């Protein structure tokens, strides 16, 4: 099968990445081409995340990158970014699974958990045997997580949790949920295991976006968790969950480039081959060329933006505002490009035979989650001016 080559208009891959980085990209790309792209439209229609992807991602080494002491590979942030880019070229749901596992579950367990908590969860997660999820957002509080209603009350045998979390990727298939709740002192993180009485994770159906991904509610009704369920390193407040989100947003910014590449490739092939007026390809028309030119330009810009943030991150110099800029810009353009590509394909673009419609629907979620588009403007605005304008 002919492998996807990408446009790489400015030879970024050949000149700005190392041999190892290119090999990482190639290996994930090969897996996505062989195992994801041929089946993903079917999974999407069936509202199903194939669990074999989880095992294969683990075998590939895409779970737990950087957690070397627990069996993960010694991968740089740029390499991790390349993984997300290739996964999301397959589907945003697949990338979401990996983002949640790596940035929102394993990252906080490693950063804020005890040695016992790390030993209990990390090796199994890296091997793909255990799944986790991250519960911060609630039905009534998304962009303002500080307003959360979920409570954790200190009792004799541990903590008593009450509340509901919503829009939780992986919730229903998770062995453990990281749940943030308000204690008497402030917001703290807890590890809530599957099967704990009072804890359930029903799946959310009827989505028209991220359908090849499991989205759930987490319901906690007088759910008693032991003392050692507390993630002790989560300082009181939102710093810990926001640090996790910053990790995830970094990966999303890379993933969006994968969507742009997928849509560009598809739109390009379509307009080069479809002949409608005077037996000339659609691509011979000025308006079509203008769109191709815009898509290619924005893709290259997005790629360079996220690469520079990645290089800064590997140097320890990336901050949350850099990541917000990349997440907002790249998701906005990925959605715009997916819509444009859909339009260029005419009626064909609304069928599952083509990918841009699925990417377009996915990007509506991706633009919204992990810090909605507008919130990232406010984060950057706050950073530039020093004047927070969130409320």
């Amino acid at each position, binding site marked *: *099968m*002919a*492998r996807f*080559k990408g446009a790489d208009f400015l030879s970024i891959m050949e000149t700005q990445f190392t*041999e*190892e980085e290119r*090999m*990482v990209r*190639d*290996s*994930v790309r*090969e*897996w996505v081409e062989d195992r994801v792209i041929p089946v993903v439209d079917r999974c999407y229609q069936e509202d199903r995340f194939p669990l074999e992807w989880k095992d294969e991602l683990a*075998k*590939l*080494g*895409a779970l737990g*990158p950087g957690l070397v002491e627990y069996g*993960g*590979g*010694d*991968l740089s942030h740029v*390499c991790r970014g390349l*993984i997300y880019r290739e996964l999301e070229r397959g589907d945003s749901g697949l990338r979401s699974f990996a983002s949640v596992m790596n940035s929102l579950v394993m990252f906080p367990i490693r950063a804020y958990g005890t040695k016992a908590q790390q030993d209990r969860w990390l090796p199994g997660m890296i091997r793909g045997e255990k799944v986790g999820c991250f519960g911060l957002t609630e039905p009534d509080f998304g962009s303002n997580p500080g307003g959360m209603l979920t409570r954790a009350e200190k009792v004799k045998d541990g903590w008593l949790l009450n509340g509901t979390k919503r829009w939780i990727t992986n919730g229903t298939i998770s062995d453990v949920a990281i749940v943030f709740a308000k204690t008497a002192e402030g917001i703290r993180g807890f590890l809530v295991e599957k099967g704990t009485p009072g804890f359930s994770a029903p799946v959310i159906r009827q989505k028209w976006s991220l359908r090849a991904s499991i989205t759930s509610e987490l319901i906690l009704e007088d759910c008693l968790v032991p003392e050692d369920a507390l993630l002790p390193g989560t300082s009181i407040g939102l710093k810990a969950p926001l640090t996790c989100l910053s990790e995830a947003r970094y990966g999303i910014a890379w993933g969006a480039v994968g969507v742009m590449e997928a849509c560009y490739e598809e739109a390009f092939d379509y307009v080069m081959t479809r002949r409608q007026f005077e037996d000339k390809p659609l691509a011979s028309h000025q308006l079509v060329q203008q769109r191709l030119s815009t898509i290619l330009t924005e893709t290259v810009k997005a790629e360079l933006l996220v690469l520079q943030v990645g290089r800064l991150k590997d140097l320890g110099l990336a901050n949350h505002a850099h990541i917000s800029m990349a997440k907002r810009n790249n998701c906005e353009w990925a959605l715009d490009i997916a819509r444009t590509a859909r339009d260029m394909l005419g009626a064909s673009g609304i069928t599952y035979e083509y990918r841009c419609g699925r990417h377009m629907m996915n990007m509506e979620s991706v633009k919204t989650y992990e810090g909605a588009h507008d919130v990232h403007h406010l984060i950057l605005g706050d950073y530039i001016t020093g004047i927070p304008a969130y409320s």
Partner: protein
Amino acid sequence: MKILTLLKRVPDTAAKIRVAGDGKRIDPAGVEFVINPYDEIALEQALRVKEAGGGHSVAVLCLGTKDATKEIRTALAMGADEGILLIDGAGERDAAASAAALAAALSEVKPDLILCGWKAVDTDDGAVPHLLAARLGLPCVTLVTKFVLDGTALTLHREVEGAEEVVSVKLPAVVSVQKGLAEPRYTSLKGIMMAKKKTIAEKPGAAAEPKVRILALEPPPERKAGRIVGTGPEAVPALVKALSEEQKLI
């Protein structure tokens, strides 16, 4: 046991091939190169033997230009322990000249088992395994589809016309593999990072006179466009006429 897998760098089977200006080679510009898919199967088999335990090691040997470092690095990332690149000079090499250079290098390395693909997909010769075994004075088993190693006893299943042949072979030996033996793995990301620390030794490939020379390389003639004789049942007589009188097929 020291297992050695031969690797050849070949154009990706999906690559669009153009003939170079001299009319004797392909133009490598814009062509993606990969490990010969059959050699990749051989490497996968070698890695499975190693991973099954018993302290086996896997080396890869490639006769090629400096560019082949990329394919050797991929093999190391898949799990091979070390790589050897025999730098090929400018001279032309047929299967005999390749086998001569490989044999010269292998007589120093002295592996217990030499595994390779039954042919390389670029030249499609399929002659190197036999020529190499003959030069080294080793037994040669070709087209292997099943590999059973029990201690030092090696049993191999091979494809023959309409049947399967089961053979045992004394080591050291040259074994060439066929599709279906082992599905090559995806390179693990951890393996890629570990490959950085492994060494690739470079040696000059021994010179040898080719016995076969390429005089000309030509692309196949372009296929003529199809012809529509008509549509619907009324087109049947014209179709029958075309198939019987023009094409002489019926």
